[in-house]
Structures are given as C-alpha cells and as structure tokens.
C-alpha cells in the first residue's frame, strides 16, 4: 500500500508540475503587462469639469450657483460668464474671458467649437463632450467622442517628435503606470474658435496637457458626479450601468501665456447603457436656445 501510494503521489506531483509548466507560461504571458480595461462607452450627465481637490482650479460660471436647476448646455438658459477674476488668469486672458462673458450676458451666443462644427481640441473637448469611448490597441489608443464624432489618437510608449507640427488635436503620447493611463499632449493648433473651456478662455500653442485616467468604484463615481451636478447643473439624464464602476480623468493644464500657474480639473464618467448616439454638427448650426444663428456667412465682397 505504502509503495503504491508513493508511486501515485510522485505521479501526481509530476502531473501537477507538468500541467503547471504548460498552464503557467500561458497565463503569465497574458499577465506580464496587464493594462486596465477602459473599454465601453463612458458617459456623464453634466458639462464643465469638476473642481480638483486642491490647487488652482478651472474657471467656473459666475451666473450659476449651487443647486441651480437650470440645465447646463442644450441651449444654455444661463449665460456663460467665466470668472475673469480667477487669480490664475494673466491680464490679457482675463480681459478675453470678461469680454466673452459680457457678450453672453447680453443675450448673444458666442461662437465656440461645438456650435461652429470646428475641431473640439483638448482640453475644451472634456468640458463639453458628455461621452468618450476608448479603443485600446497595441500601439495606440483611439478616443472617440460622440458630439460630431471627434477622434483623438494617442501613440503608446512613444515620445513627442522633436519638432511638433501643430494640429487640431495636438500630438498625444501615452503610457500606462499600473492602473493609470497617462497621456501627454502638446502642439494644439489655434483655430478661429479654439478655447480651453466654454467661457472663451484662450489658449496658446504653448499649451501642455497631462491626463490621467483610472477606473474607480461605482460609489465614488456616483458621489463625484452628484457633487458636480449640484454645482454645474444637469445636462441630460442618461442611465448608467450598475454593473460597472466609473472612469475618472484628472487633467492638468499648463500654458504660461495664459495662466500664471498650472491648474487641474477632473471628469468622472460611468458606463452608459445607451447605444452610441449619432450627433452630426453639420446638420444644424443653430444654437437651440434662444434660436439665434451664429456666425452666419456673409458675402460683403466677391471672393474671386
């Protein structure tokens, strides 16, 4: 009996070892560089960025107070008046924000990338897009935003070229740090309506943007979203999938021509149960409320 058990036991050890030799490399190969899974369509029911826990903040709307029920976006029943007294703004930038705010408060809808169907350059893109879908490929991440199908490409584990040719979305490179995706963007070209936020805060081509994305649990995501909606107002009521947590973006903006120091902001998303919504800017340039045409083309003189 003892001899039989001994042979079986040795056989079992060898078998486990043999199986481990076969199984473990396969599993190990999958887990050598685990990356967080950001797949799915992420959504939020608010515009504008959330305030950072500390440090210099993004501009907020002077016309909006906590718990204001007016929706944010979709016509903007409240004028968009950025806080031009934010001490982080350099004088010329503060002047531009004040002027944009005065025009908005007078009832005019200022042209912006969203209503002009212009590129939604970063970081503006975060303030207005309600959703994002990240397609994680081996050497790049493609980020899709629903309003007017804006697309950003992030090259993974690559550096910026020595000479960056400015482009609408800038040059973005990224890498993973454990559970976090870090994206670095420079070289955002200035177009006629390029702006950092919905208040017309200008940016220069020296803008440097760092984004950090990570998954957070559903309770934290819900709390962050509710806190933000109380301050910034609701924008839609998309249902969220209770089976998933949240995706949180923390971003930092440096632009020495506009801001006296870098500032940070946050965006929290949850997984939506709605299908991807087709939103085509070219179909309609009318700002939904109060129904004014923006930037109507005029032909004062012949073009040729």
């Amino acid at each position, binding site marked *: 009996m003892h001899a039989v058990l001994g042979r079986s036991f040795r*056989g*079992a050890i060898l078998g486990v070892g043999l199986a481990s030799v076969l199984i473990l490399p396969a599993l190990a190969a999958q887990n050598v560089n685990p990356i967080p899974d950001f797949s799915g369509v992420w959504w939020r029911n608010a515009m504008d960025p959330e305030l950072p826990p500390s440090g210099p903040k993004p501009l907020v709307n002077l016309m909006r107070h906590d718990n204001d029920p007016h929706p944010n976006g979709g016509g903007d029943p409240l004028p968009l008046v950025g806080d031009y007294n934010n001490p982080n703004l350099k004088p010329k930038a503060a002047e531009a924000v004040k002027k944009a705010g005065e025009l908005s408060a007078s009832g005019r809808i200022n042209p912006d990338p969203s209503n002009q169907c212009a590129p939604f350059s970063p970081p503006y893109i975060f303030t207005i897009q309600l959703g994002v879908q990240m*397609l994680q490929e081996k050497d790049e991440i493609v980020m899709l935003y629903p309003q007017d*199908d804006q*697309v950003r*490409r992030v090259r993974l584990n690559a550096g910026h070229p020595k000479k960056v040719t400015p482009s609408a979305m800038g040059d973005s490179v990224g890498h993973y740090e454990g559970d976090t995706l870090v994206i670095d963007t420079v070289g955002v070209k200035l177009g006629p309506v390029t702006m950092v936020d919905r208040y017309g805060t200008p940016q220069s081509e020296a803008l440097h943007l760092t984004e950090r994305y990570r998954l957070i649990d559903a309770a934290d995501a819900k709390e962050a979203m509710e806190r933000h909606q109380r301050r910034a107002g609701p924008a839609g009521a998309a249902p969220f999938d209770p089976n998933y947590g949240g995706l949180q973006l923390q971003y930092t903006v440096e632009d020495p021509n506009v801001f006296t120091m870098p500032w940070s902001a946050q965006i929290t998303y949850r997984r939506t149960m709605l299908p991807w919504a087709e939103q085509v800017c070219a179909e309609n340039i009318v700002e939904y409320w109060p129904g*004014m045409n923006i930037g*109507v083309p005029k032909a004062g003189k012949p*073009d040729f």
Partner: protein
Amino acid sequence: MFNVRLTWPVAPLVAAAQFLLVTASARDAEVPDLSGLWGRQSLDWEPPATGPGPVVNTKLRANGMRDSDTRVGDYNNPMLTPFAAAEVKRHGDISLKGETFPNPANQCQPQASPFLLTQLEMELLQQKDEVVLLYMIDHQVRHVRLNQKHPAHVVPSWSGDSVGHYEGDTLVVDTIGVKVGPFSMVDQYGTPYTGALHVVERYRLIDGQSARDAEQRNEKLSGSAMGRFADFENNGKGLQIQFTVEDSGSFKSPWSAVVTYLHGREWLEFICAESPYDYVTGKNPQIPTANKPDF
C-alpha cells in the same frame, strides 16, 4: 526515469492545460487580423470580377486616363433608373461647365457607405463586440456591431445601421437605414440613393503583390490623388473590400465594385470645417451668398 501513469489527478490537469492552449489558439485563429491603417491613391473604385460595376467617369484626358478634375458619370449606364440617370447627368453637366458640384466631402457633411469607400485612408479597429472604422476626411467614424441583427425598425441615420460577422478570413458588413440628405450620393459622380439602399461589404487580406498590382492598375486608369497615402514600400498584405450595392430606387440591379488598400503611410488630420475646397478640382463649391438678410 519515472514511469508515470496518467491517472487522477494528473490526467485532468494535463487535459486542462491542453484545453487552454488549444482554445486560445482556436480563438486567435477565428478572427482575421484586419486592423491597422490602410491607404490608397485613387478615388475611383475597381471594377468587379463579374457582373454590373459602378458608375464610371466618362470624361477622359488626352492620354486616355479618367479626368478626375471633371466628374461626369456615365448616365447612360443601363442599370440606372431614370431618376438616378437624371441625377448623374445633372451633376455631370455642372462639372462640364467647369464648376464643382457639392458632395458630402466638400460640404463637410456626414459620409455613409458606399461614398465612404472612396476615401483614401481608413483605419480599422477590431474590438470584441464591434468593429470601428475611421476615415481620414473629416474624422468620419462608423460603428459595426458584430454578430447582431438589424433592429426590426431601423431609424434612418447618416451612417445607417451596420452589423457585421466573420466568415472565415472575411469580415462581412451589412448596412441599411442610411438617411437621405441634401448632398447624398453613392459615389463621386452624384449617383443618388434612396431609403432602400443596402450595402454589403466583404473585407479580407490579400497578398501584398496582388494589392500593389491592383493599386497601380487603378492609378493608371484613374490617376493618383495629391499626397501619398498608400505605402508601396511595405511588403505586407493588402486589404481588399468587395462590396455590393442594392437600391431599387436608383438601380435596376445590384452592382459591385472593389477597393484595394495597401498599408497606410501616416494618418493625415483633415478638418473639413477649415476649408471648403474640393482638393481635386481646387474650386470652391457652393459659395454662400446673402441675397437677403437672414434675420
């Protein structure tokens, strides 16, 4: 040496290991890897191997090549319904006057299949439940839901409803429900479509030499766009799409065409809102005029 008999618990462990390895490799083999950046040089499509092909440009240059600066589709093509033939002629007449007629690309409008298949650069991204197709001109995006059916009632949209599945080495994409808008057309010649449009696209890899030969044949016939989008130095495989279009409102029979890509060189950021120029003809289409105040 050990003389090990494969009894409990060895046998199940080894079997499990073999199962994991086999299923992993079987899963990898199921889905062809069509992902990547793909480029081509000519806006025109290649003819199908058999059967009716697409509307082609009847305007030729002195050297016999199709004149990509003057788009005059063959409105006498017998497969066109009278409605479609009239539209093709109307657009061709505009071109013959030396003007550029508006099309989705130069009007910064959404583009749908098959018009999208005229684009010179495309990126194909394969996900678990969908394939996402990105197109160079004006950041057009298509979502193809995998292994699903069209809804019983399709609400027309600019992209239409696209569903796809793999058949061996081929991705098959089926699209219906494409909305009709002011500049809607299936091709570069203004050939119209109706709400009955149904497009089936079949994507598969082909050997690099065949792809380069197809590219060069098409360039000889139709000319090459400004800029280099196809990487002729890449010896890898090409991507070929064979697509079929049915639309009883515009065509008396289905027709097919072929699009061949090589690996793309570099993604070109092309923001339509920055310029209304039609790059091929270099003329401004539909310049806005203000004959009366808007408000």
